[in-house]
């Protein structure tokens, strides 16, 4: 029985490695650890004897564990969706309506703003949060459609440091909602504009065109 469970663990690891689903679970820099573990499985399976005294009755956790792993080997996973963000706080760069902010760390980027990814935009905004600095700049990014707690439309992506457990969402507001289902991946082009709300001012993307895309091979931003 022990070897059967080990075999199924091996099958599960092989399946997610082969289909590329491994990228949905952990950061790519840890892939080699999984491949190495997978390479160890044959040694664990083939070498040494087992004691007949190893009682399945006392280790009955192995049965549901095995069943779960078998089904996980069959099941087609998809990347994290907006649901995973439900109970978590989200950092939205928002500044007071009456005050012009100027960060001392802010700088002018001379390259084409259309080259920036969603993560680049969020990073730059964390250095210089003043929305007016970006007004009128052209944007070309991809992500999935997301609506925040206040039902504001966004284009979003998850950032991963280690594994899916630490995934946190980043995103850019859209000035108008799109006729798309939440969690659909799309590529979007448009111009940035400043939107005022009762809580302050924030940047939003005025979409000029968008097209649906398939879920990327690595759907998360990995740092």
């Amino acid at each position, binding site marked *: 029985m022990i070897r059967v469970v080990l075999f199924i663990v091996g099958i599960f690891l092989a399946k997610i490695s082969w289909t590329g689903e491994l990228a949905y679970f952990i950061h790519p820099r840890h892939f080699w650890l*999984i491949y190495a573990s997978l390479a160890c499985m044959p040694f664990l399976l083939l070498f040494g004897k087992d*004691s007949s005294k190893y009682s399945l009755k006392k280790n009955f*956790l*192995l049965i549901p*564990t095995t069943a779960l792993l078998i089904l996980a080997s069959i099941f087609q*996973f998809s990347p994290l969706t907006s*649901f995973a963000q439900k109970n978590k706080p989200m950092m939205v760069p928002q500044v007071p309506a009456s005050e012009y902010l100027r960060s001392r760390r802010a700088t002018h980027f001379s390259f084409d703003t259309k080259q920036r990814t969603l993560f680049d935009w969020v990073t730059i905004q964390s250095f210089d949060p003043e929305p007016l600095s970006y007004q009128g700049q052209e944007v070309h990014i991809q992500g999935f459609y997301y609506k925040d707690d206040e039902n504001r439309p966004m284009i979003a992506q998850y950032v991963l440091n*280690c594994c899916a457990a630490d995934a946190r969402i980043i995103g850019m507001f859209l000035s108008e909602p799109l006729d798309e289902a939440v969690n659909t991946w799309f590529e979007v082009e448009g111009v940035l504009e400043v939107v005022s709300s009762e809580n302050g001012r924030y940047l939003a993307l005025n979409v000029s065109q968008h097209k649906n895309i398939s879920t990327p091979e690595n759907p998360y931003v990995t740092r």
Partner: protein
Amino acid sequence: MKRGYYYCNSIAIVFFFIFCILTSILVLYCMFGLIFPSPINDFLVIFFGIFIAGIPFILIGALLSALVEIALSPEKIVSLLPKQRFLKFFSVALLGLVLPVCECGNVPLARRMILKNMPPSLALTFLLAAPVLNPLVIISTLVAFPQEPMFVVWRLLASLGIALIVGMLFAYIPSPHLLVKKLQNHEDHVHGDSCCHEGNHVPKSFSRWSRFWMVTRKEFLEMCGIFLFGALLASSIQLFLPQGFANQVVSSEWLAILLMMLLAFIVSICSNVDAFFALSYAQVFPMSSILAFLVLGPMLDIKAIPMLKSIFRWKPLLIIIALVSSLSFLVSMLYSLFS
């Protein structure tokens, strides 16, 4: 040990039923070819994310424990310790760096070292420090918190400090007041058996390498079982904990620390992979409470109490629990002040 066995079995039964429900849902979806709705998919991605990130460390831990089991003798370790008092405590606290066994594996080793005339206060220092101060745990914590190297340093220093303080305090109590009467030598006892699985002995007739692979296999699967339980709990809390409750807990740092200490005590997750488990709480709970979880968990949990009871009497054991818990709380509060 019998009571400990029942404790572990009660957890296992709860785990079994949760797993059965989860498995049934999966079977239904697979049978009818349905597409998983987002909540189930996200739950499974986080659940298996934690599990997959932990697998390599569980495997390395199992291989190392098996190696320690077949290659090291407690007599040798005891004879190599320095003579000076503080150095002796310090070197025992750092023994985990060369004997990287988790909190399940170090109890049988500590018992055998006591039987080879190691003072119980020294064995206690080893028991408290070794599950954290070992290379595997250091690496896994660094992997889980790559942006927080100082947090890893805090974890190591806190564990070292608590182990030294508690161990050196207990050096003033005579051994007969600390130890259980029947501390007998079980030479066949293998790592992992003592946790929840009494009676799984490795026959002496097996060759050394047969024993090595057998211990590795058993260790790996037993740890996987416990880790899956932890992952189940972590992913459920992360996705389904009401935001209001989380905010309430987070608003009070000491409450968050106490809650995470309680969680560490209940989930009894192996120190090799507890950082991945804690990671899922890092977005909601303050880092000081995550530190409390990572410091207390490897020293004390439901699974460790019966194992420690096989060495210490009830009274000293309760003092150990009180001391370790208070010091972990104190260290976490200090972290929140200075970080």
